[in-house]
């Protein structure tokens, strides 16, 4: 259920633009902001602190999280995980935080029943998260593909949200029509 006044769809870029490829999440959000995604989509850049993340995606119909994630693949590789459908890999999120990364936030949200109705995590393999501004060529090259994938998923979710039946409070009463437009897994840009 999405409270009145809150966009039903959120895209959250996690990372620090001053830590090289760790900034890929905010960079992706910035690119998405350049196109009109509609009033039902909110774009956020966050530092990845899990409680803020959980608060950002709770009570949303659809959420996309973009983060630099070290999974051992080639730099620039795009991973896609649908929470509750795909197994959450044991990724390591970039520079530290008190509570860990997006995987911990997902697990925490599930315990607290504060996940989005549907949540997709895009993880991009960094080359480096050293202090410095700007993405590495490998990660920068994957951004257009990443943004196109997210835009496609958001458009499908937006259509589904607008087409879904509503309850008496004007909110969508079913998530059944929000089918995933793409399968989970690993892609090269």
């Amino acid at each position, binding site marked *: 259920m999405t409270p009145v006044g809150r966009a039903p769809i959120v895209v959250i870029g996690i990372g620090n633009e001053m830590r090289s490829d760790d900034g890929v999440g905010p960079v992706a959000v910035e690119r998405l902001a350049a196109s009109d995604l509609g009033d039902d989509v909110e774009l956020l850049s966050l530092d990845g602190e899990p409680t803020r993340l959980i608060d950002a995606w709770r009570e949303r119909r659809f959420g996309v999280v973009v983060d630099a994630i070290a999974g051992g693949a080639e730099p620039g590789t795009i991973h896609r995980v649908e929470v509750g459908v795909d197994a959450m890999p044991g990724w390591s999120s970039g520079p530290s935080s008190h*509570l860990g990364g997006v995987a911990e936030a997902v697990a925490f949200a599930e315990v607290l029943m504060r996940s989005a109705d549907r949540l997709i995590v895009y993880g991009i393999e960094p080359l480096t998260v050293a202090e410095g501004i700007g993405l590495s060529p490998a990660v920068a090259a994957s951004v257009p593909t990443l943004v196109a994938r997210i835009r496609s998923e958001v458009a499908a979710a937006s259509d589904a949200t607008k087409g879904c039946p509503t309850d008496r409070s004007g909110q969508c009463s079913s998530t059944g029509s929000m089918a995933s437009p793409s399968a989970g897994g690993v892609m090269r840009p």
Partner: protein
Amino acid sequence: MTHRAAGGRALSTGALARVEGEGAMRVVVEDGKLVDVQLNIYEPPRFFEGFLQGRSYTEPPDITARICGICPVAYQMSACAAIEDALDVQVDGPLRALRHLLYCGEWIESHTLHIHLLHAPDFLGYDGAIEMATDHRRPVERGLEIKKIGNEILELLGGRAVHPVNVKVGGFYRVPTKAELLPLRSRLEQGLQLATAVVSWVASFDFPDLTMPHELVSIDHPVEYPMLGEWVTSDRGLAVEVDRFLDHVEEFQVEHSTALHARLLERGDYLVGPLARYSLQGSKLATEAQAAAADVGLEADCRNPFRSIIVRAVEVVHAFATAIDIIDRYEQPDRPAVEVEPRKAIGHGVTEAPRGLLYHRYGIDEDGAIAAADIVPPTSQNQTAIEHDLWHFVESNLHLDDDELRRRAEVTIRNHDPCISCATHFLDLTVVRS
């Protein structure tokens, strides 16, 4: 993971959880006797003081805020205080009150995160917050709601919750109207009620009986429980204005850490943070916070690091009560910041980050460029005291097996909510017994 070595044993763990940053702890035991304890910080040095050289006097609040995602306001406040001291600028009245209000938001957020998600699992016997939340969902939900209200203060006054962008030397870029603050006030009333209940919750935990002898150091303000101030005091006679602070503190390097340690000259280790503030300045707490402390029997002089969780909870009550009072008294200033002109000067600033006293010093050139910067964060100051606590704990508990010794040593460190990222960034633990 335990390794057996010839003639003794060495135990090492993966990263110590629930602290900010990357580091390790090493404990050496020979013939049943403790011979060394080291808090190793191997986070690469971050060179912020170097980055600042040559930048404009207007930039340290935004640059130093990037040192920490948990306490950016502290960095902004100490940076502003030091630069304004150098440029002989007075920021008072409603502008100072708004800074105080912003700081309340950060205390609420930072303390509530530590209380509920980092520290409470130690007392309730869980490996972490996620495991604890399964059995203690309501208190965790309450904590998240309190933290969210703190977040709302930062968003309203700071422009965003992480690394606020509305603070500038001389005041703010934009100040809120009274009408903009009023909806926040009702949220703060709600937060005050929730925070008061947290004091009772954490006071119900079991605490080891322990008194540590560190000298306690905090800001001393004539009437306010300190967040902002100009004087530094201790329980053993230190009383100096901020510009003399470094005359009494020696920063020194140790081989096992990339963060500088600190000690008081001719006195030794000292402790900053909630225990110091509360024990030295507790009479200045808001009435609601004093009542909450009294209701749970919190001693006026609290030197038990484990009970710092209660003190943090009391400080959250104080932050809510203070924030409400600030809003009630607020009248929108006629300008968002006072004029600032650069000049060649040196300035000193000190404020109370959630983890303790945070000192900044800047040398500024005629054209306003930063010639020199010096930042002394609370975790650096507390490192020696934390090692002292560890030594005391390990020496008294050598009978414990390695797993239990490790677990309780981690708690000993978390008592002080260290922010290793601030000090330079996770702790591995190695115990060597021979």
